[in-house]
């Protein structure tokens, strides 16, 4: 009985979350990201750094501007990383079934280490294409560039990374 109640409660929470998004002019993304990379420290070597899961919350400011508030967990080459992002998305071209936009994000977070996590900071810029399945439901892809640095890791090894994040997700 208790399990049934919990499932019902969870369903209601999800329904509320999705519907309030539409009412209050704010949307949410859930996306998968992969990180083909190019530079690390000061060396150029194309490769693959890993992938992650990202949840982004978008309060809509006006017809062209939205805020991005994101949380991302990534499994990367020799580290796990949690990043919180804050940025802005600007619509370049809006049609009936699609929307093209650019966005810039400031990233702050931690590399997950014991006995203490290490601070990571970074910036990224993305170009994004949204395809509208319904008025409030889109599929999107985004491609861009990202630079992150973990100064506390400097004494061990590679502490600066640049990558070309490729994102595929759903917005609701």
């Amino acid at each position, binding site marked *: 009985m208790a399990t049934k109640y919990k499932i019902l409660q969870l369903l209601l929470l999800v329904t509320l979350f999705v519907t309030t998004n539409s009412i209050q002019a704010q949307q949410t993304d859930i996306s998968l990201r992969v990180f083909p*990379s190019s530079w690390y*420290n000061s060396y150029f070597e194309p490769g693959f750094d890993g992938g992650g899961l990202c949840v982004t919350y978008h309060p809509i400011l006006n017809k062209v501007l939205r805020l991005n508030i994101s949380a991302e967990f990534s499994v990367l080459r*020799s580290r*796990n990383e949690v990043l919180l992002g804050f940025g802005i998305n600007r619509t370049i071209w809006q049609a009936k079934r699609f929307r093209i936009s650019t966005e810039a994000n400031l990233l702050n977070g931690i590399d997950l*280490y*014991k006995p203490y996590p290490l601070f990571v900071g970074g910036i990224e810029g993305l170009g994004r294409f949204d395809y509208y399945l319904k008025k409030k439901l889109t599929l999107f892809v985004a491609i861009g560039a990202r630079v992150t640095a973990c100064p506390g890791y400097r004494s061990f090894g590679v502490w600066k990374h640049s990558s070309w994040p490729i994102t595929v997700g759903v917005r609701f």
Partner: protein
Amino acid sequence: MKLFKKTGLIPSLVFFIASCSYLPDDLIIPSAVTIYEYRDYIEINPTSNQYSKTGLVFYPGGLVDPHAYIQPLSKFAIAGKAHKVVIVKMPGNLAVLDGNKAAWIYNDFPDVQQWVIGGHSLGGVMACSVVDKYPDFFKGLVLMAAYPRSSTNLNDWSGSVLSLRGQYDGLVDSLKISSYIGLLPTPWWIHGFSDYPEGKVPKTVYFTIPGGNHSQFGNYGIQKGDGVATITHEAQAELVSSLILKFFIENGWEYGN
């Protein structure tokens, strides 16, 4: 508290804490080796640039930063005729996510003619798997507190295996190692260098490091659940290096056969 539970904050925190990797203790690198750092691996190169034609490629333990193995493996890099050692960096520091990596690294080292693979803990488990998948590519296997998973059978593999375990290992006990003996070539237990079998006979040599533990195969402090070692990290690393060198010599790899 209820809000934290509802929003999934507590499971997320537990997940994040469980994803933390052990950072290495301070790195003290012997002057006789040069460390080259790349995105996918760390190369330990004898400074003299003269080394055996057989290299060692190594998989770190699960959730242990690969730099934690530089110090202990540097000892082997400069032991005997000297060796090229390559420590593979794994996604999320979990060898299970890129277990075949070692089989692709050889392209970057044309001067190394043959490879022995080693691994610590989860790294050792995945080293067994890659040997199972590419049996002709590797000549030998060095297991540090590790054993093959039940789906990996190396019983009739033509290579040689050296299996090491610390006496006070609190994470991998001797019973666990014993229960997977059938998946490795014929067992041979030794208690010291004098017992070491001579010549190149395909077999698994087992050795328990007196006073050693699980964490001291690397250099990252004490892992949760591990026993207390009665020998220093330095002493365990020295012994491991000597045993791997003996393993190389007896199999004829030290001089490039």
